[in-house]
């Protein structure tokens, strides 16, 4: 039994922003009532009372895109450390991509992930299964069996879905199963050997760059295939204005296309890249115009979700020459604070921001997220002004590859509740 008192509840499902008290019984929300004054006592006998004065309570955040590395890459992260880091970021559910070792391309890997999660994860784990066997782009993976085992979407993330022909097969198949297809949109021939976005900075640093078209050419292909097959399609980590324009046009035509943007893409640009592998990820940091377009897309609804693409790498593997470092940065614990920077600067409303973490991603997965009686008690409680500084050595993640080390933030996740249990509470 848990009582959350005097919370500012922002619930995108009902479009409401109200002061409420919330009762949680077991793993469900049992009752919601207008907030009483702090002096009044509550009727609950056993259980904790959480004073949420000055804090926002939202439905539990969902991260549509992350890498938990287990099985196979446990030196950089495990399901346990990853979900703990996610909880510290306010996330109540995470969707790990299938590029583990072995690749999650069949039901037994899916089941082993879910069993492990049941034992050690502090958030929900909703795995994404591979589209092709081994994500090698040659033949269809056992998608139906994986769906029965519990995947929520398919992707060959790490790679684009290799050919238009394979994409069509995957989409036809997934439409019948009502599974969304998530693509890491990239034209391999334009990408070849690149380590950052092509531009003044790449030329200055002498690093090989890829043009924005590397992504948008693939988005264009995938949108047309969506039209052909009628399958739900989601663009992973969208980073370029050109890609956004294609998604916007597709939505206007009524196609079931959605997209996500990562916090590092709406915060940094290619001008921030230096010879420091904490700034190396794929898709790479884009231009200032792209960033401005992404923020506009976040505000106007073209972008459906903020997803972290949390990609941990052990320190030694990143401590090499820029060319040789693996792509990826962590992101669970800084996502909300970075999104709040957009709210503080007036570019995003708080309601819209909450949508991007909750109902937006839920809709992509065909799920619901709401703060209402009877709903699952997955809640994210955060402050919009708590001042703090992010330090990688205080993070729950095993890895430290974040470009935001030392960044001062205003606003942070304070309490994370999953299935009615508090899985994270910020130290004073």
């Amino acid at each position, binding site marked *: 039994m848990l009582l959350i008192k005097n919370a500012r509840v922002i619930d995108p499902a009902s479009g409401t922003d109200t002061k409420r008290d919330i009762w949680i019984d077991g793993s469900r929300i049992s009752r919601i009532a207008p907030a009483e004054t702090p002096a009044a006592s509550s009727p609950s006998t056993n259980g904790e009372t959480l004073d949420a004065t000055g804090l926002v309570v939202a439905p539990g955040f969902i991260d549509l895109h992350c890498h938990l590395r287990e099985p196979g890459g446990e030196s950089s992260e495990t399901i346990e450390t990853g979900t703990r880091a996610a909880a510290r970021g306010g996330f109540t559910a995470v969707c790990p991509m299938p590029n583990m070792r072995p690749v999650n391309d069949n039901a037994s890997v899916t089941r082993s992930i879910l069993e492990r999660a049941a034992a050690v994860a502090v958030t929900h784990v909703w795995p994404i299964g591979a589209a092709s066997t081994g994500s090698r782009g040659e033949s269809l993976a056992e998608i139906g069996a994986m769906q029965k085992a519990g995947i929520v979407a398919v992707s060959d993330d790490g790679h684009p879905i290799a050919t238009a022909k394979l994409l069509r097969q995957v989409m036809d198949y997934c439409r019948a199963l009502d599974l969304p297809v998530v693509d890491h949109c990239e034209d391999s021939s334009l990408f070849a050997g690149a380590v950052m976005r092509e531009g*003044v900075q790449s030329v*200055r640093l*002498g*690093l090989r760059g890829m043009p924005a078209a590397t992504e948008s050419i693939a988005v264009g292909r995938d949108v047309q295939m969506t039209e052909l097959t009628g399958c739900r399609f989601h663009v992973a980590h969208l980073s370029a204005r050109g890609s956004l324009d294609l998604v916007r046009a597709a939505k206007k035509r009524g196609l079931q296309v959605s997209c996500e943007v990562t916090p590092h893409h709406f915060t940094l640009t290619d001008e921030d890249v230096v010879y420091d592998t904490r700034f190396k990820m794929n898709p790479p940091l884009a231009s200032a115009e792209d960033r401005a377009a992404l923020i506009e897309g976040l505000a106007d609804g073209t972008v459906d979700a903020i997803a972290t693409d949390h990609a941990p790498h052990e320190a030694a593997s990143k401590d*090499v020459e820029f*060319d*040789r470092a693996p792509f990826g940065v962590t992101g669970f614990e800084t996502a909300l604070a970075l999104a709040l920077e957009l709210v503080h600067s007036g570019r995003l409303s708080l309601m819209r921001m909450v949508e991007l973490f909750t109902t937006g991603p839920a809709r992509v997965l065909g799920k619901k997220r709401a703060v209402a009686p009877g709903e699952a008690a997955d809640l994210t409680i955060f402050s919009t002004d708590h001042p703090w500084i992010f330090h990688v050595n205080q993070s729950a993640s095993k890895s430290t590859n974040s470009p935001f080390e030392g960044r001062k933030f205003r606003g942070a996740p304070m309490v994370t509740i999953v299935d009615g249990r508090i899985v994270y509470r910020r130290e004073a």
Partner: protein
Amino acid sequence: MAERLRDLLSIEELTAGQIAFLLDEAKPFQEFQRHPLKKLATLRGKTVALAFFESSTRTRISFATAASRLGADTMNLQAESSSLKKGESLLDTARTLDAMKPDCIVMRHSSSGSADFVARHLDIPVVNAGDGTHEHPTQALLDALTIRDRRGTMENLNVTIIGDILHIRVARSNLHLLSHFGCRFTLCGPAMWLPREFECFGKQVRRSTRIEEALDGADIVMVLRVQQERLHEPALPLNEYILLYQLTPERLKIARPDALVLHPGPMIRGLEIDPTVADGPQSCVLEQVTNGLAVRMALLFVLIATGSEADEARGSAHAAH
């Protein structure tokens, strides 16, 4: 007084004052190359590690000779015999060399930013002898010295660079260096090697894909070599390059009559440069090589010779006689 130099990683991070200082320091070493006995004891007992992960004959020999003429010893790591082939990382190799206590590391590596990366991990001075497609600082210094000697100045000149500007690191270093001195640049070559972003490099940089237009009014013509193969790129047919971009005597006439021709070497006569131009009176290639030795001796002297307890207030006026 120019700010104390601790490494030489790029020209981009040097001030005009530091560049002028290095070129002035090179002058006595130019004169030194004419001595009958070319051996100093200035860096006696000091060791220069030459870590060339990318094979290079000319630059490596130039640095080795510079070190040796200053009296220093060298440690030699060469790509062919490198343990990198056995999978040892750059960082491990650098640390292994460092554990043998050299006084300086001169390195060449195929990754842009590799010298910066090594310098962040080691305390001793690091000299970038070429990192990926990023910079080749000593080449730009010796080019500037050559220009200054032959022309009397390196200021406000029209400089045309012909070739693969995108991938040849010398181009960036030259751009950064001569931009400090008011030079105007025309970058010339096939469109895919001339990204528009170069125009953001200095106040006076323009591009041209036509060599005749690019050479008009040039005081300095820098010819870059053509790398015959490159990863991830469809190759340009060499005959196309020769037809459109070879520096021939006729094309050279379009430039100013006293224009200088520079080439970082090695030249392929008949490819990017006509043999008569390569060996003609306007060509400075041999002086470039001699000046390379002088610049590298000056650089090693400045980085290694000065002691840690050196007190700037104690100038030579008070030094022991």
